[in-house]
């Protein structure tokens, strides 16, 4: 009886854990597939760094839209790497075993993509990296994305002009180990250096999150007082947090600029709370990645790198982005 109890307890643990893992990994299904047509289709496997990421969700929308439009040509399967490099490697190996015609990867860590690249190229499977650039692209591998540093430059050029070339600016950075965060900030700094009157007075991480962006801004307002003229944020969500802090402190004189042009960001732009944002075309990147993968798998000539441009969004051109 006692043994039975012990056994059933062990079973219980396994069930609970696996339930936990199942739901955890696969909210919208750890795996999803798009494409309903019959006959021989190009099989594409997609490993996404993290399903939790709002931006990557919109990118997946772009991929799915492409898959549905070309349903008679492609079959796409999505898996979630959950920001785990080792898991992503396993997923790519699974795709290779399944003999996919092309593999699309949003890499968890761009500095550790070599094993993925060599695994795919050895089997002569076309490989497309999206959004995060591994920079080493041997034959049969491709990259689709936007040049992060451009977003930073666009932000600071806009702010410098709006401030008349003079003023103190604080920068809200994303996660400090993220390439986008580092490059966007670098773009900010590059332009700021060109103006004598523009000074970046502090750079702090808001971890891409609204709440953290708000708290950093609250502290900045107390520290710099009226001297602070603008906040450049690595993404819209942190910018929205900054706006919350500004509203609370009744400071309407401070300019805030974000990146992404998320629906929340655009709404804040319309009400005048957000001064401007920079549009990174998530769905465009996703759709283009699928197109590159499909063409490469069919043996058509494709450019090694495809750049999806960033664009500055202000009240004047907001209608183009809704």
């Amino acid at each position, binding site marked *: 009886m006692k043994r039975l109890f012990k056994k059933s307890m062990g079973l*219980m643990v396994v069930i609970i854990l696996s339930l936990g893992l199942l739901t955890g990994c696969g909210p919208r299904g750890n795996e999803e597939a798009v494409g309903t047509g019959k006959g021989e289709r190009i099989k594409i496997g997609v490993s996404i760094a993290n399903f*939790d990421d*709002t931006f990557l969700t919109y990118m997946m929308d772009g991929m799915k839209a492409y898959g549905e439009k070309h349903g008679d040509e492609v079959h796409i399967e999505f898996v979630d790497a959950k920001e785990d490099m080792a898991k992503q490697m396993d997923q790519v190996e699974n795709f290779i075993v399944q003999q996919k015609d092309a593999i699309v990867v949003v890499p968890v860590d761009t500095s550790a993509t070599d094993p993925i690249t060599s695994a795919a190229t050895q089997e002569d499977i076309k490989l497309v990296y999206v959004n995060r650039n591994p920079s080493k692209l041997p034959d049969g591998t491709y990259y689709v994305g936007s040049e992060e540093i451009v977003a930073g430059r666009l932000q600071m050029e806009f702010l410098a002009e709006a401030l008349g070339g003079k003023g103190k600016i604080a920068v809200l950075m994303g996660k400090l180990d993220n390439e986008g965060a580092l490059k966007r900030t670098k773009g900010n700094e590059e332009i700021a250096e060109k103006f004598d009157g523009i000074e970046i007075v502090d750079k702090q991480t808001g971890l891409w999150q609204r709440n953290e962006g708000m708290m950093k801004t*609250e*502290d900045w307002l107390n*520290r710099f007082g009226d001297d602070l003229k603008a906040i450049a944020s690595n993404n819209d969500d942190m910018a929205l*947090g900054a706006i919350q802090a500004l509203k609370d402190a009744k400071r309407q004189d401070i300019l805030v600029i974000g990146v992404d042009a998320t629906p929340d960001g655009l709404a804040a732009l319309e009400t005048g709370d957000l001064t401007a944002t920079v549009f990174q075309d998530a769905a465009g990147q996703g759709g283009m990645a699928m197109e590159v993968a499909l063409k490469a798998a069919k043996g058509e000539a494709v450019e090694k790198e495809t750049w999806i441009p960033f664009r500055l969004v202000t009240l004047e051109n907001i209608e183009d982005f809704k």
Partner: protein
Amino acid sequence: MNVAATKRMIGKYGIYFVFVIMVIAMSFASPVFLSARNLLNVVRQVSVIGLISLGVTLVIISKGIDLSSGSVLAVAAVVAASLGQSGDWHAKMFPELPQLPVIFPLLAALTIGLICGAINGTLIAKTGIPAFIATLGMMVSARGLALLYTDGRPVSSLTESYRYIGQGYILGIPVPVIIYLFMVFVTWVLLNHTKFGKSIYAIGGNIHAAEVSGVNVKRNLIKIYAYAGLLAGLAGMVLSARVNTGQPGMGVAYELDAIAATTIGGTSHSGGIGTIGGAFVGALILGVLNNGLNLLGVSAYWQQIIKGSIIVGAVVIDMRKNAKKN
């Protein structure tokens, strides 16, 4: 007062002294630190983690652990937010839903927290699996649930009465601070002046002795975790109201901050020892630390290193005090 008595005082109230010293040091280092606005800022910034850490304190006193708080916060936040979206928002989750009074999202957040916590407690009490495992399962599942519910998208633009919970003021004091202080009081009463509170200490001190002396261990465990879940749900409501959005990625790793606050506040992981006053000061120390490092303009990389060191340092001081006592 003689030397021995002074030492005893410092021993007993060690963590409070650490806090006072930090405040004094900061007020010299930064002229704006002691301004009323900044101080209110600090307390408001810690109110979310602080709410969670109150529940976590009860859990840790009972010699358990709760790793699910951050994820439970997220589920509560997204569900509450979906019931509290303002009518004119273009991407409403339930377009047909009329604009509801704030009591509905609030009750939803509290209920979800309570249920998640009760599931944790029931698993631990009825199956005997370690709290670490049960709450780890909940941490992973609840995060998944939040993603499933929102399809990974933010639930934004909340009604004015909803936002008031996070952004409003009563007599110049931010509402989150009032909620936090109120719950500090409620939890203090619960722990020090009820049979439930005594049972928590008894279970943490020696679970078998507690059982023998007539404490209903199972029922109390369920209640402890349910209360911790309730507070995580409330924290989710406050946080979403504060930032005008419910997002499935909210509160990642908050459980660790809450555990850190509780631990800094002198709650022992070997069970049976801990106070609500300590948890309160622990949360404030974390808040002053964050705020102070920002005011001083310490680089983002260094901030993390310093924070980690101070958390460990504070606990080392506290451990020495407990070791001496034994």
